[in-house]
């Protein structure tokens, strides 16, 4: 199957509050997708729909060929889910968690689980309730990977993890994906780690707008420019930049004390032309390099 996940004209709303109007997207087999967006744009809603715990108001969300809210047992066998906060049964010990989960999955690989868990250097009789969030994340990841699923959906995998555990989580996931042609869809509030292993990114914006990019292409074509401004008040600057954002292909302008950050897919010369009418110090106009996190903030805006 070339597209394990297909979303077509997906609409969802909470009472009178629309989340998506007409969301369409195809997720290719073997790729890693990062779903990005500010709080409240519907990332968790999308993940819940994909996981089959929320039925969309209308439209289609097909996961491995079946509607996501009506997955058969055979299809669930091929999907591994990571719930927010690395949800696990805390009354289990490491050994009990493995023994329990292994009974349900036909492709279960005990070695994958213990290979990961052994790195924690904890006795197998250690209870999950007494683990740190980072240690628990490793156990949960072990339980997911041992299923040898075709599709992994990871809801905010980084929540509660420090930099070390985030990096460990990603390293092991990458190692696993080298040998398994699985598709991964993930969300995270920590964008910086995604840069090294995500193939494609999907931006969700308020009102149901979406944009899909291959990560290298996005990082190559999306730019940040800085330029000094001479506006007396923040409001004056805001009024001026609003007109530009509306008229041109400027994605976002962040106003700082005495300079602006301009985010756009336009090249430097084109942006220079667009902002020529503003009261700006064009001598200092320059492009600045960005990390994915900078680009994410620039793309979605700080507020």
């Amino acid at each position, binding site marked *: 199957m070339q597209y394990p996940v297909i979303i077509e004209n997906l609409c969802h709303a*909470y*009472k009178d509050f629309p989340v998506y109007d007409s969301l369409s997207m195809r997720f290719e087999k073997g790729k890693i997708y990062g779903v990005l967006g500010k709080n409240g744009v519907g990332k968790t*809603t999308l993940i*819940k729909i994909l*996981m*089959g*715990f*929320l*039925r*969309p*108001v209308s439209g289609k969300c097909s996961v491995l060929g079946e509607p996501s*809210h009506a997955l058969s*047992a*055979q299809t*669930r*066998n091929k*999907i591994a*889910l990571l*719930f*927010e*906060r690395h*949800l*696990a*049964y*805390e*009354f*289990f010990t490491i050994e*009990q968690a493995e*023994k*329990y989960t292994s*009974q*349900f*999955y*036909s492709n279960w690989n005990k070695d994958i689980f213990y290979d990961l868990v052994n790195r924690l250097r904890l006795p197998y009789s250690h209870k999950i309730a007494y683990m740190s969030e980072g240690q628990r994340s490793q156990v949960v990841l072990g339980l997911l990977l041992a299923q040898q699923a075709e599709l992994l959906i990871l809801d905010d995998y980084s929540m509660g993890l420090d930099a070390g555990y985030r990096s460990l989580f990603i390293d092991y996931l990458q190692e696993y994906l080298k040998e398994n042609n699985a598709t991964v869809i993930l969300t995270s509030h920590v964008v910086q780690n995604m840069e090294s292993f995500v193939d494609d990114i999907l931006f969700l914006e308020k009102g149901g707008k979406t944009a899909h990019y291959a990560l290298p292409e996005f990082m190559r074509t999306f730019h940040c420019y800085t330029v000094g401004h001479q506006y007396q008040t923040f409001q004056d600057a805001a009024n001026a930049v609003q007109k530009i954002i509306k008229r041109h292909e400027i994605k976002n302008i962040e106003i700082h004390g005495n300079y602006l950050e301009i985010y756009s897919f336009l090249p430097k010369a084109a942006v220079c032309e667009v902002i020529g009418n503003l009261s700006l110090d064009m001598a200092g106009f320059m492009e600045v390099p960005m990390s994915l996190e900078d680009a994410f903030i620039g793309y979605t805006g700080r507020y």
Partner: protein
Amino acid sequence: MKNAVRGIFYKEWIKLRFFYAFLFLFNFLFVLWINLDIYTLFRLDHGEIVWYRLIGLKQMPYQALIFLPMISGFVFAFWQFLPEMREERLRLALHLPYNNVLLVYCHLFSGIFLLFVLFLFDVLFFCGMLSHRLPFEYCQTAFLTVALWFIAGINGYLICSVILIEPQKYMRIYYLMVFSALLIPLYSFRQLGQTVELLPVYMGMAVVLLICAVLSIYHYRLRSVQA
């Protein structure tokens, strides 16, 4: 299917075993206390008076036992399903590659099984002690009377479980009102053997509650609006 049953029973046992041991001890002490109360009755009163009260007036000096299964059922359901509902952990079980109805029934039947063993112990312990002092015919009627209380305890467990699983608030209130109303008659009878005819009603109620559990899981799994 065997794996699913074994897996869920294993999980529930790990989760509940310490609480179950505590509940077992509590039930044992409670029934022991009831039996000591009956023993005291025989010791302080003349045999004819006790006979008149038990047989003639059909009084039940062990009436307090009526609350034990219901309280045990409620508390057991909370202990079993609150960890599942906290942070929606039930999703972990419902994503397992087996039929959701089978998975939820495995949870419920593991609870019913453990409660059944506990209640069976209570009833046999109680009736066994009673048979030392009273004739077989009396013990038989007493057995049927207390058996109903214990079946109602299983119903209490099911009501509580269904209410905990059900995501829709109005359905929770509906279940609470309807099933609580059905339990009230049990507590309004005060005489031996009076409630025996309710036995099939409460057994039927358990079946209805098992069907309601499927409905609740359907609501939980396929809700279109976040609860």
